[in-house]
């Protein structure tokens, strides 16, 4: 495909997505679509790092910070999410830098890095639970309903508005992805993921490059958490933070394929449809079953299809192209 055709395809697809809620108004299906878009954005944020071999299980922590800081600022200080979301993103970014800097500076990679980030998401969960006087602990937390301006409070009643908000956020995620894809950082990070010492010897500032991508990823994940909180109007530590959420991100990204821009989105579509159909099929007995299926699929995917569904499909479609260096 030529570049123009490529862009045209994207434009047509996007236009169709924007038009959708004005043609089709079933609230349940729109709700599912909003969830898919928000989680796609979160999974895309995770894959920003994941595709370069920086496997983080700390993103549950960033997402939790995004959701809780925004909601807490709104409830306790009356600060609009328009201010609260940037503040929460800065908080998540600061945490990412505090944890990331020693990790990258002292070459904590592979297992070590995963375990450190794993602990990070565990700790954020503990902090949210421990500060139960403010956050409601494990029982969850609800942002106060807006009395005045809905837009100021970023609370909308109709699904169409939320669909458009989620769509916009999702598009931002893809734009950032492509922006990184075309930047020099991409080559630097790919070199780092292949061989850190060689990359450093070739003049790549390993610590700075890794910190940059970690910061971008953490900021976006916090935004996803905040949007999720604004949309659902109810958050619990387990749905927006902790190890389970981190693993959910990893799972969806891997199922969809984390080396292609739409891979995490495909992952989100598959996992959310799977969870919803299990929920409808099993009713209340579904508690636990969705995660059971997730877990088994995750293991099977890693063993048999490590590039994910979309990644493997694209590879099958273009056999003449050389495999990408990141594979």
């Amino acid at each position: 495909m030529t570049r123009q055709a490529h862009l045209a395809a994207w434009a047509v697809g996007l236009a169709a997505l924007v038009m959708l809620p004005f043609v089709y108004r079933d609230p349940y299906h729109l709700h599912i679509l909003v969830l898919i878009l928000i989680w796609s954005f979160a999974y895309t944020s995770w894959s920003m790092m994941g595709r370069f071999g920086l496997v983080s299980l700390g993103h549950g922590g960033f997402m939790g910070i995004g959701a809780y800081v925004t909601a807490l600022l709104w409830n306790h200080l009356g600060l609009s999410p328009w201010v609260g979301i940037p503040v929460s993103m800065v908080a998540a970014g600061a945490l990412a830098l505090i944890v990331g800097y020693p990790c990258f500076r002292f070459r904590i990679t592979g297992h070590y890095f995963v375990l450190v980030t794993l602990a990070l998401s565990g700790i954020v969960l503990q902090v949210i639970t421990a500060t139960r006087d403010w956050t409601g602990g494990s029982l969850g937390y609800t942002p106060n309903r807006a009395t005045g301006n809905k837009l100021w409070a970023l609370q909308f009643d109709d699904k169409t508005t939320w669909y458009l908000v989620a769509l916009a956020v999702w598009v931002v995620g893809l734009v950032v992805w492509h922006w990184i894809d075309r930047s020099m950082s991409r080559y630097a990070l790919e070199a780092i993921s292949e061989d850190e010492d060689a990359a450093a010897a070739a003049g790549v500032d390993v610590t700075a490059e890794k910190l940059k991508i970690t910061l971008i990823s953490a900021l976006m994940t916090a935004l996803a958490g905040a949007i999720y909180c604004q949309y659902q109007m109810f958050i619990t530590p387990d749905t927006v933070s902790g190890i389970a959420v981190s693993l959910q991100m990893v799972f969806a990204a891997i199922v969809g394929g984390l080396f292609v821009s739409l891979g995490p989105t495909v992952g989100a579509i598959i996992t959310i449809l799977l969870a919803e159909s299990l929920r409808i099929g099993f009713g209340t007995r579904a508690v636990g079953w969705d995660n059971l299926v997730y877990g088994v699929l995750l293991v099977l995917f890693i063993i048999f299809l490590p590039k994910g569904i979309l990644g493997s499909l694209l590879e099958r479609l273009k056999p003449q192209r050389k495999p990408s260096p990141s594979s």
Partner: protein
Amino acid sequence: MQAFLDIFDIYLLEAVINGILLGGVLALLALGLNLIFGVIDVTWICYAELVMIGMYAMYFMVQYYGVSYFIAAPFTILLVALLGAALHYLVIAPLLTAPPINQLLATGGVLFVLQSFATVAFGIDFRNLGIRLPVLAFGDMNFSYARLLSFIAALVGMVAVYLFMTRTFTGTAIRAISQDRQIMALMGVDTKRIYIITSALGGALAGLAACLLVLQYDVHPFVGLSFGPITFLICVLGGLGNFIGGFIASFVFAEIISLGGLFSDLEWGYVLAFAFFIVMMFIRPAGLLARRR
């Protein structure tokens, strides 16, 4: 004022000793994780979930079928050891040549499976053994008998592993493999067999920890999350695969949690431990006992 100080000191001492007792069980978990990392070069993210399954096994045998605690314990250890071997055979073995991250994520998938299996099979109720061991009063200090027992059993378990590793041929082979993975296969050691044995041993340690933890804590499907992360922190701080480092780090962390819990909630003890961990990463990034290159 003087009276206040006296009470304070007693509590402090009690917390310190409780920390040491807690450290025993943590050290057991760290040992199992380090063993598997050192030999197979894999981190079992789902390690704490194996413990959770073991705790359920204990609960059902003791509470449901009326088996005596000391008869149920060996069965639980055996069961979790088999689970460990199965985990290696089914999940890790096909991935041995895959990137290490994939192995780690696959065990993350197993974490999901075990957690949700427990949710589906046993429900999300908190269950406990119903055994209330007496509280040991020593001067003005109170110690739970269960903790003392756990500490001793954990020490015995660790000594047993030490003897196995140093006195038997298999143990020697395990230590040799952890030093050089390629050469040992050329020396005629069946690496596959050693990997399975190591995994079973790691599982057995998780099983022993389960028998001890079930005395002190309620079991529920997510109980693994309450001590899993801290075990990983301990292993990283001690240096992955470094047995002695893990042992020392266990007690350091246990003290932080115990003393942190003394002044505030238990969760804050964990938060404090994490803050300490971050600081330590700046100072000794390759683990407590790592030599400076």
